């Protein structure tokens, strides 16, 4: 098996998932809509005082991003599991963890990237200063791939279950806590004009760690779920 054919399998899988997503546009739009909707509920719930909104804004946007990611996670493997494609991945001669990275990358492009694009708008709605919005963008750019990577492990473990959704949130949300803390804290810190390089380094470290470990765990979990 040459690395050439592995690369080909990777790009083919990525292209296939993106094509599927573009043909079902609701899959892209629904999490995005959810993200905007949840964020805009907060001013209605806690009052529209600009100072208050500015204080809770980073946390609110990040929690909404977490929930939107959670909502879309099942899409990574569910349909492939139902039509048997997933078994073919496991039977193929390519390392499953690399195929998993392709699936996760596709998931991020479909659901993570749109969040990134729309988040400055939400930042403005919640009255965040310009610097904070910039940092919000950076934390989302570094953080949303982590959401997809960690989430993939959870989905792989629950894909064979009929009522996997509730368990999935119980499995995945506690693992999102460090990211939420570092990211929301970074935006808060930026909003008062302090340097945030430490936060960004930690989020990058989380990204590197989850990129290197979670595909392996996901592959192992898939093998168990399909055994």
């Amino acid at each position, binding site marked *: 098996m040459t690395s050439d054919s592995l690369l080909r399998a990777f790009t083919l899988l990525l292209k296939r998932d993106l094509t599927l997503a573009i043909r079902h546009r609701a899959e892209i739009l629904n999490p995005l809509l959810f993200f905007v909707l949840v964020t805009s509920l907060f001013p209605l719930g806690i009052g529209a005082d600009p100072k208050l909104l500015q204080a809770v804004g980073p946390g609110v946007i990040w929690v909404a991003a977490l929930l939107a990611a959670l909502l879309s996670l099942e899409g990574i493997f569910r349909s492939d599991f139902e039509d048997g494609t997933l078994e073919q991945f496991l039977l193929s001669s390519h390392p499953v963890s690399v195929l998993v990275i392709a699936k996760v990358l596709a998931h991020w492009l479909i659901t993570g990237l749109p969040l990134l694009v729309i988040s400055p708008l939400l930042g403005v709605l919640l009255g965040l200063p310009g610097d904070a919005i910039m940092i919000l963008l950076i934390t989302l750019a570094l953080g949303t791939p982590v959401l997809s990577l960690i989430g993939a492990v959870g989905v792989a473990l629950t894909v064979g279950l009929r009522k996997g959704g509730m*368990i999935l949130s119980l499995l995945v949300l506690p693992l999102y*806590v460090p990211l939420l803390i570092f990211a929301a804290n970074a935006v808060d810190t930026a909003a008062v004009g302090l340097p945030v390089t430490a936060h960004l380094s930690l989020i990058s470290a989380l990204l590197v*760690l989850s990129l290197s470990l979670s595909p392996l765990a996901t592959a192992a979990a898939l093998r168990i779920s399909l055994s």
Partner: protein
Amino acid sequence: MFNNFFHKMASPRYFYNISGQLIPWIAAACMALFLAGLYYGLVKAPPDYQQGDSYRIMFIHVPAAWMSMFIYVVMAGAGAIGLIWHIKLAEVMAISSASIGASFTFLALVTGSIWGKPMWGTWWVWDARLTSELILLFLYLGVISLYNAIDDKRTAARAVAILALVGVVNIPIIHYSVEWWNTLHQGPTVTKLDKPSIHISMLIPLLLMAFAFKLYYAFVLLMRARCEVLERERHTNWVKELAETK
């Protein structure tokens, strides 16, 4: 020889017999340590100069919190052994640990909250260690509900092992992230490298209770594991014979 020993130990039947003989001894030692720990902790140890008598809940709270983390690591270790060497008994140990660990975590949270009321003035604060203990409880509940959701118990045990391993990588990260986020809890007083800042008259009951909790864990773990082994092996001959002779 060495291999043989492990294979013998890991056979469910051998485990069932040997654990049956061990359990009374462990239970007796556990009771003795509990009585000694409670006596020294509740009667002998002097009241704290600041916290009065209410600090005595520490003799339950601190060992429970230690156990909550210790058991998670044991569970992940046993799960890894089960995954790598396909030892059934390790899978049984891992899954039998989960609900004991969850109970200890819950106990630590409840006693912490009862202790917090007179000390900090509220039942709950979003303090670093309380929060990471709460997240640990969620991790345990995730493990338990995943195990219950999968019908085939061998598959379930392996899925749980992966989840526990992912959790064990994350626990230090969660712990430190929460620590930097907010802290109000008193610092560690027993494990400081130079000299523990806890007086010896309080340290002795604390350690007695810690050992009592460890033995209690071993005791309950063996009981649960025996049940689990019987249930899993119910179609084998030795379990049928056992059922007939009794």
